[in-house]
């Protein structure tokens, strides 16, 4: 059973007395967990991270670390280290000294410093770079130095603020796997901030979806993807068709001028709802065999699938399929009951 490590209770952050950046955040995470704060820019995810790191004080609410309130503990006294977005390396020191910084501050004996710096550098595949200057390294290498520098103090929590944001796609994919590996190797909690939903799905144990200073949903990647709690989450995580619908009764929802069987219940009768269907869950068939009939508006090749826009009576549906229909063709669309997500209007 993993143990709770950090808890935020009723944390709010208001800038200049008017801009609410965080609105009553309640969140906890466990030892050795890979937790991702996911959301669009300005959703408060970085502020949350800075509050945990101690760089900002919440306007109200409490932060607990291992059960102890740490609101007023300065960053240098927290057992938490940070990997900054643009690395923030010390340009006046070489790679070795950058990584050794935390140990030098704690006056660790020289031979132990050497041992641990070697260890950290080999963990991020940078052995042999000790004497190099910061500016002679590529972005990806600087990022790895930043990680080595942050884990050298053996923190209980590592905060990562969009650490891969400045890297190109290929490098980012590589670093995602590497980061996940490092996290499992050192066995500490990672709190990872990103706006990239794919990154979040790939790496996390738990995803916290945020928008406009509020937590929208907390769950495993599979939960969040398959059972989004509201239209925002559905739209932000992956592609979605979101249409207005009416809940007729339990297990029955109507949208697109038709009533569909579904797996949701517990709504008020005739409640207006958001209906979410993933593009890959819509199946194209002959018009007479579909539940919805529409005309193919466009077909775009996306690599492993075609993205097809089908204009129905009330809505233009986005469909992902491996077999492309012709533009202008009439097609039928059908969907399985358990692929229809019904959610309260937010």
């Amino acid at each position, binding site marked *: 059973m993993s143990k709770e490590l950090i808890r935020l209770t009723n944390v709010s952050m208001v800038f200049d007395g008017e801009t609410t950046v965080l609105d009553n955040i309640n969140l906890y995470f466990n030892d050795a967990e890979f937790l991702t704060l996911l959301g669009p820019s300005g959703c408060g995810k970085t502020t949350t991270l800075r509050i945990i*790191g101690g760089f900002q004080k919440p306007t109200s609410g409490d932060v607990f670390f291992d059960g102890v309130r740490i609101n007023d503990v*300065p*960053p*240098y006294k927290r057992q938490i280290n*940070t990997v*900054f977005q643009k690395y*923030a390396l010390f*340009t006046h020191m070489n790679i070795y000294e950058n990584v050794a910084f935390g140990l030098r501050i704690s006056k660790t004996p020289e031979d132990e410093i050497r041992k641990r710096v070697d260890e950290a550098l080999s963990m991020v595949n940078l052995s042999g770079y000790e004497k190099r200057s910061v500016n002679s390294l590529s972005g990806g290498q600087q990022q790895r130095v930043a990680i080595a520098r942050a884990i050298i103090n053996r923190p209980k929590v590592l905060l990562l603020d969009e650490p891969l944001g400045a890297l190109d796609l290929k490098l980012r994919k590589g670093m995602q796997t590497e980061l996940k590996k490092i996290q499992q190797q050192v066995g500490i909690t990672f709190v990872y901030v990103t706006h990239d939903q794919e990154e979040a799905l790939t790496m996390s144990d738990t995803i916290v979806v945020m928008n406009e200073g509020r937590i929208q949903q907390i769950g495993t990647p599979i939960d969040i993807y398959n059972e989004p709690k509201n239209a925002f989450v559905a739209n932000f995580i992956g592609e979605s068709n979101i249409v207005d619908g009416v809940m007729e009764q339990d297990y029955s929802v109507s949208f697109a001028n038709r009533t569909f069987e579904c797996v949701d219940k517990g709504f008020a009768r005739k409640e207006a709802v958001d209906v979410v269907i993933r593009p890959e869950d819509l199946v194209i068939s002959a018009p007479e065999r579909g539940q919805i009939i529409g005309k193919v508006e466009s077909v775009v090749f996306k690599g492993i699938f075609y993205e097809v826009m089908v204009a129905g009576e009330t809505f233009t549906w986005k469909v992902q399929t491996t077999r492309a229909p012709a533009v202008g063709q009439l097609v039928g669309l059908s969907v399985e009951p358990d692929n229809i997500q019904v959610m309260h209007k937010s």
Partner: protein
Amino acid sequence: MKKKYLAIPYVGWMAIFVIVPLILVVGYALINRDGQVTLDNFRTMTQYLGAFTTSFRLAIIATVICLVIGYPVSLWLAREGAAVKRIAMIAIMLPMWMNFLLRTYAWMSLLENTGIINTLLKNIGLFDLINRVFGTQLSYFPMINTPGAVVLGMVYNYLPFMILPIYTVIDKIDPKVIEAAEDLGAPPVMVFRKVIFPLSLPGVLSGITMVFIPAVSTFAISKLLGGGMTLLLGDLIEMQFYGSAYNPYLGSAISLVMMVIVLICMAVMNHFGEGEGEAVYF
């Protein structure tokens, strides 16, 4: 494409007004009144060793004082908001917009034996008090025509040249780098020692250079505030060109030696600041 021709005006300017005069100075330093090539000028110079030591001593003192005042101000200023920065910048630059001589004359009228400061102290009865307590015959503090007044003049005139480069460098330090140091366990004093100070060294070196060089070669300040009591290199050189002792050959030789000493000082400093980024060197 390299647009080398863009440098032509500057190169031309340099050639006419820097390189040629420099050659003339070297040439003058090596001849005597009769146009014979000789090292006599350098031999004569040994009589003025005192001026050399005084000049360097006072310039070093002034530079150190500027650094001690300027560094904390820069540090404070870099942390302030935009509004405070703007106002402080104007306050720092304001004296520089006034004529240099005017500023120095103003100090004269402040420091004179019957000047504003002494008159003020007299009127509040300070001298009477001191005379009664210590049995002295004091009627003013001698301030003008002392080495202290010269140093004061230097500090007053050159302090902005210390503050500006240091402030600029500190202001450019990424706040995230400072946060990173705190994050890794460094309390504020350590953050300063291990991160802010080393990163600000290029600015410190620029500031030292920009204060020390004009200070070591000044003549107006020592003339007005030192009253000719403290003979500095600048005065000595001026005397050789405009004074009764008219001897441009000796003047050139002194200039040349001073220049070499300053260059050596800068090279030594440059060496210490190596790898700390680029500073302004003359």
